[in-house]
């Protein structure tokens, strides 16, 4: 161990190596497609005026020909007539459209580099059943290849959540920019992830399904464990409160696990429940009512069937099933394509998400578009990957639409943001002009002309 550290120290102190890394970085990022000056992977801050653009604000009317002014990382002004300060860099966006950066509200991006067979690169699931104190923000890798690959399609913010056990840990909302986790963080500790116990007939690989009654029994046992754990946390909270009021009481021993649950049992922060079927979603709602929680559903195949209960408790849905097959053979073939339109009709608050662990988060726009092919309006489809996830994640004051004062996460395209043939021409995150390069463009440049 010691030897390793010494070697590392020696290497780091070796100045020419740093130079090499710098040169290598420059070489690898020299392929910016839109703008040769954008060579640094972290992009470049500045005052930018995107002019003559079609501005799809999402929150308000689309401006057919206008300007977005970016200053100090924020949208300083937006409109048909915006005065551009002297010295601002002008970007002529004639024929182009400006959209807010897309938000995927349920991914494991950054927690897993290569999911199958490369365990060393995977940090999605902690061991054990109850891990409320595990925090995604401490494991999201800012230098994952997925960061750049995802953002160049126009997804600029994601929720990254852990997955293991019953209580998986706490999810983070991050921008797809930054050299450190702190730089990425929008909401470093956003919500608690609970894999809500469900009735599952799965009996193990190669094993026959278990009896329904047995499946119910197993679900009930796991649910009771969860209830107990929440009660334990509530007791822990009461002991702590009592001690705060009366220091003559014995000082409580800090328990990081139960401590982590306190903001959730007090309803200060949202609990994200993974649940798909109607009966499981209704089970979640019951649990939310019992414990007076702030809840969000992740998954939500049949959320539209439980819309009454969800709406009554203000529980929004992050829908992750566009690229899944209907569970039952006799479900309509478009059952899961159509679910978002049914949620919209039922007046549910929802977002569309890939639910992906990283590589395919860039499918977000196509997934939203597919929902529009099967009943959702195009306008709602766009909102379901911009403003709605921002609202669900409680960051709509900063992100999700193009409004003065919001963070300048913007995408400039040559067409409809959700269409698979549309090209991103410029990308801004935190008001920085970001190069449109990634591991994929780098490999393309290396091999495209090989004879």
């Amino acid at each position, binding site marked *: 161990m010691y030897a390793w550290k010494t070697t590392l120290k020696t290497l780091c102190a070796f100045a020419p190596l740093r130079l090499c890394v710098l040169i290598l970085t420059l070489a690898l990022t020299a392929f910016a497609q839109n703008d040769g000056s954008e060579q640094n992977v972290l992009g470049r801050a500045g005052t930018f005026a995107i002019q003559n653009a079609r501005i799809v604000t999402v929150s308000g009317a689309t401006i057919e020909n206008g300007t977005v002014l970016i200053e100090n990382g924020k949208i300083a002004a937006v409109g048909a007539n915006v005065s551009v300060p002297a010295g601002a860099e002008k970007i002529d966006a004639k024929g182009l459209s400006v959209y807010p950066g897309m938000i995927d509200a349920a991914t494991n991006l950054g927690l897993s580099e290569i999911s*199958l*067979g490369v365990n060393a690169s995977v940090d999605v699931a902690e061991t054990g059943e109850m891990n409320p104190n595990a925090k995604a923000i401490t494991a999201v890798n800012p230098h994952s290849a997925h960061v750049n690959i995802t953002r160049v399609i126009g997804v600029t913010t994601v929720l990254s959540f852990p997955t293991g056990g019953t209580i998986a840990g706490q999810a983070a909302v991050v921008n797809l920019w930054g050299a450190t986790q702190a730089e990425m963080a929008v909401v470093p500790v956003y919500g608690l992830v609970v894999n809500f116990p469900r009735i599952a007939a799965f009996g193990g690989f190669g094993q026959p399904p278990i009896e329904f009654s047995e499946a119910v029994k197993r679900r009930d046992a796991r649910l009771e464990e969860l209830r107990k754990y929440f009660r334990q946390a509530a007791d822990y909270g009461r002991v702590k409160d009592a001690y705060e009021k009366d220091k003559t009481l014995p000082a409580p021993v800090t328990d990081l696990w139960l401590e982590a649950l306190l903001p959730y049992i007090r309803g200060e922060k949202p609990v994200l429940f993974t649940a798909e079927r109607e009966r499981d979603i209704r089970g979640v709602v019951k649990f939310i009512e019992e414990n007076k929680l702030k809840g969000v559903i992740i998954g939500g195949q049949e959320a539209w069937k439980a819309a009454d209960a969800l709406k009554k408790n203000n529980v929004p849905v992050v829908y992750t099933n566009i690229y899944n097959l209907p569970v039952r053979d006799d479900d309509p073939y478009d059952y899961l394509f159509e679910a978002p339109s049914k949620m919209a009709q039922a007046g549910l608050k929802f977002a569309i998400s890939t639910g992906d662990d990283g590589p395919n988060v860039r499918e977000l726009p196509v997934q939203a578009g597919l929902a529009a*092919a099967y009943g959702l309006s195009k306008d709602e489809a766009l909102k379901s990957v911009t403003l709605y996830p921002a609202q669900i994640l409680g960051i709509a004051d900063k992100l999700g639409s193009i409004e003065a004062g919001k963070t300048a996460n913007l995408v400039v395209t040559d067409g409809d943001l959700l269409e698979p*043939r549309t090209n991103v021409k410029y990308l801004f995150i935190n008001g920085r002009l970001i190069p449109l390069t990634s591991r994929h463009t780098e490999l*393309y440049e290396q091999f495209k002309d090989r004879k």
Partner: protein
Amino acid sequence: MKRVVCFLLILVSGLLSPAFLLGQDKREVLIRNATVLTAAKGVLENTDILIQNGKIAKIGKNLKAAAGAEVIDATGKFVSPGIIDCHSHSMLDAINEGTFAVTSMTNMRDVLNPKDIAIYRALAGGVTTANLLHGSANAIGGLNTVVKFKWGKPVEDFPIPDAPPGIKFALGENPKRTHFPALPNQSPRYPRTRMGVMETIRDAFVRARDYKKSWDDYRAGKTRIPPRKDLELEPLVEILEGKRLVHSHGYRADELLNLLLIADEFGFRVATLQHGLEAYKIAPEIAKRGTGVSIFSDYWGYKLEAYDSIPYNAAILWKAGVVVSINSDSDERMRRLNLDAAKVEKYGGVPEEEALKMITLNAAKQLGIDKRTGSIEVGKDADLVVWNAHPFSVYARPELTMIEGEVYFDRSKDIERRAALEKERQELEKLDVNKSNNTTAPRLPSEKRQAERDDAEYH
């Protein structure tokens, strides 16, 4: 006697069928006023397609159909060739005979399930034809079957009778069983490395060459005792004789090239590299040999050997002159291959028609069925999809999918049937036998046929 009566009954019922009464060549369908994406000769606006006897008879404006012909008004709609998926495991009851490293004696034709709901869902995504492959557990896997998705027809109607036979090979992580370690009471299966995979293939072809020689000698009268028939080596002899197409799963550039070198060594051509996620690194070597590549559009990163995959793969290969197709390898992805094809326009600027060919004509070429399907041209099978919008738009969905002039998917009819199906389901659920409470629930079906599908998910 009974048999004769049966035969006569079948004959009579056949004579009374509408098709026979109308006369074979009178069976006409006319698609009117569509935007036709031919995948061969460009885009034709406001165009009619006349179908006779399951074949495309005429393409043009203001075509006339016989009285009684079915007329489909496609005004404002798009018609494309039926999508051909060059890598699928749909409708297979078993995918991997993973016990040996060489299983060329197995045949996917023996495990077709014509009632797999994946067929209908694929039709609803515009897929009409699929290359049903053995899995990738073995360096040399089983024989493939190329089918049309004739949902509702008996299983023998599915395979395309004149499609050239083929076989599955596999390289890399799957045949070396990276993700399937031996169980505690098992010894690991050879091969365990890429070295072993190559030697497994070389050894099989050495044995096949010797076997072929033993038969050649016998047939030439050089030996008097006929050799023992070897079901494992027979298909490999067909490969050596150029009669069987090799479809090889593989990811890394080096292993793909090493297979091509083995093929050079034994004098055969590899028909397709399946997946070929790093094929772009060796595009000239692939192009030189006339080998096709069947890829994912932009699916990547799920395992180490998929980490250097890039969505520009199609563009680089296409520019090098390789015949490229885009496949699904998945019942789910299969439903949206049109969007996967659309993406290659963005990544590297493949022209629209060339991108469309990657899910139609090019796949047909790779499978040796391009004379009958894959594009909208006179004389070809009427395997067509009517879309509500351009199939490369995310807002597009198939409205009608037909095979040989017959409609196998009709969205409006599907929607019409839903209320009745839902009612039937509710009535069934109310039956005593299906009533469930926590103590006396009905038994669940013991096992679904799909349970046999093991590592298909690992690609």
